[in-house]
């Protein structure tokens, strides 16, 4: 069970990142739980200042850009 967190205040790029992550996780067939973190102070606790960002099991993997589902797959594996 992977815990995937999308960090972002709700801009279009954050939604795109959530979509791509969803697609990547589904393609890999892993069990996961995706949460959107929208509170700015919560986002800061990850040490992230450029949104959107993706954290896998609490570890920040991407900051400030939207990778393709293919790239996200590598981060989840």
């Amino acid at each position: 069970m992977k815990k995937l967190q999308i960090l972002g205040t709700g801009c279009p790029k954050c939604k795109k990142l959530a979509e791509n992550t969803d697609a990547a996780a589904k393609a890999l067939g892993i069990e996961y739980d995706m949460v959107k973190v929208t509170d700015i102070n919560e986002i800061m606790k990850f040490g992230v200042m450029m949104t959107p960002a993706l954290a896998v099991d609490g570890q920040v993997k991407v900051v400030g850009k939207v990778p393709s589902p293919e790239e996200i797959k590598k981060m989840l594996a």
Partner: protein
Amino acid sequence: MDFKSEWKKLLLIAAVFLAFFYLPVGKPRFDSAVMESLQLVRWYAREHVLLCLVPAFFIAGAISVFVSQASVMKYLGAKANKVLAYGVASVSGSVLAVCSCTVLPLFAGIYRMGAGLGPATAFLYSGPAINVLAIILTARILGVELGIARAVGAVAFSIIIGLLMHLIYRKEEAAKAASQAAMPEPVAARPLWKNGLYFASMVGILVFANWARSGDMRAIFLCCPGGLSTYAVEGRIVQKTEQTVTVVDTKGNTHTLPAALLQGTENLQKNNANESIYKFRWAIVLALLAVFVYMVGRWFNRAELTEWVGATWGFAKQILPLLLFGVFIAGFLLGRPGADHEGVIPATWINKAVGGNSLRANLLASVAGAFMYFATLTEVPIVQGLMGSGMGKGPALALLLAGPALSLPSMLVIRSVMGTGKTVVYVTLVVIMATITGMIFGAWF
């Protein structure tokens, strides 16, 4: 029927019904306001979308993809040189904050994990005002002076506000231990000069495609019922009868105005260099375009280009509908510039509230701007409408400086980051600064 869950919908339907029931169709003011808003939207679509906004979207997309944001953020990190941090914070908005939704996380990040309160507030203030799209559209629609004044004013005052915030809270700042932020890794794909040429050719295309003819005279008209202020049109007089004067301005728009409002004309020196560039502008644009296509083909790989086009499309999708809707609303409420082009709100009201360059007009404009929420770029048509109804240039700048930087929703987020006290101080500083800048600008031009 479950009344508890349905009553909101009922209320909504009733409200919409009542609005239609009492729709003032046929009342001259309402009908002309609708016409004004349609005219204004058409004018934007014809004159500004293809030549100005489309290239601007490509530039904004390129900035978000090809300018390494990580290398800019390096100067705003915890270990950064403090003096340099203020300078970088005050101008980096043009690179980092093309989308207004990225300003607040960056601000919180610089405050908590980076260079501290001063640079963070400097960034927060200048960021929304100096993003490329905002400057291009302001200069194009409201005039070059206001565009430059907006950018320069935002940079200068962001440093002052940042320093003041730092001085007011310096004890607290000294006690704070900063943690290091997670940064995206910088990617260097090609030498700087190649990126530089790529951006320069895009900016060149934008500038030359919009090259305006120099006018040979300036006509000054009385503005608005009551005639409390004046406005000038630069261009050529094509027709002058007893009743009306027709002027074609430097952007190619025709203004037909009552002859009674004409106060006078003055001749302008024709600028030869300007005229010849105007004559050859399409040849220059085509040449630049050819160079641009060559560069894109040779220096960029497929993945980069897809990302660039994707980012450009993202901006267009996000901003165009909001902007055109904003133009429509601004046209409905305020009408187009010029006499006899009123919207729903009478020009005399606006003239009374923010006409001229008094302290009161400037203060009112900056307070209103600080609390109002503007969607990306919509501040431009709104200020255009207000100026057309008699708002002075000083209050216009005050509104542009206080408006996009602050809104009620953003104040709430800022408060959650740095607390009530600092937020109140910040908002007060912004309002005071915007008012003062507006007054200085208004006195000058």
